[in-house]
């Protein structure tokens, strides 16, 4: 399963998405304000893969040095591949 989060960490939508991803053993795709979840120490015990959208990361001035080591930056083409890759996609929160 892939959970997509577009809401910021300080929103209930964002928190709900993260909880679902944690409990469901899912991977995370972060976009829009959801990219702030990729900052260090924001993901708690989440253990899946973390992808974040490059355009939205750059727009918000996020630097790689402030990101969780697991966070992998992707473009829209890779996002499309993930969406069409066969896993269930849930979101966007």
């Amino acid at each position: 399963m892939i959970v997509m989060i577009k809401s910021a960490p300080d929103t209930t939508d964002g928190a709900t998405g993260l909880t679902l991803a944690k409990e469901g053993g899912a991977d995370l795709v972060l976009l829009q304000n959801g990219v702030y979840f990729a900052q260090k120490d924001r993901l708690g015990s989440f253990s899946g893969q973390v992808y974040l959208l490059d355009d939205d990361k750059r727009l918000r001035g996020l630097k790689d040095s402030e990101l969780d080591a697991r966070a992998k930056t992707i473009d829209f083409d890779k996002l499309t591949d993930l969406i069409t890759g066969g896993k269930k996609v849930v979101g966007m929160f």
Partner: protein
Amino acid sequence: MATVAMILKRSPYGDINAAEAVRHALGAVSFEMSVDLILVDGGVLLAKKGQDDTGTGFTNLEATLKDCLDMGVSVYADDDSLKAQRLDRGDMVEGVKSVSAQVIAGLVKEARSTMLF
């Protein structure tokens, strides 16, 4: 005394509020009104350095914030919100003042009118 205090609560780009706040701040200051732009909650992220709009189709709001400062808008960021949003002073656009909630309350109280974004 500020003629208008504009309070931005939302982080930039996810919705239109940050763009609207800086647009109206620029509009007001160009009509020689005195403007305080007050960043709280996710709004402090507007002051983050290094925003790159290349290829996205968006207006760069860091550049627009700098225009506001150049035009004479006073920009304040709430200390507690900066901590919550993990924004260090060194990561902030120069000229943005980091202030306490008490100072912000004073600015709002003194302003003739207030706009919330």
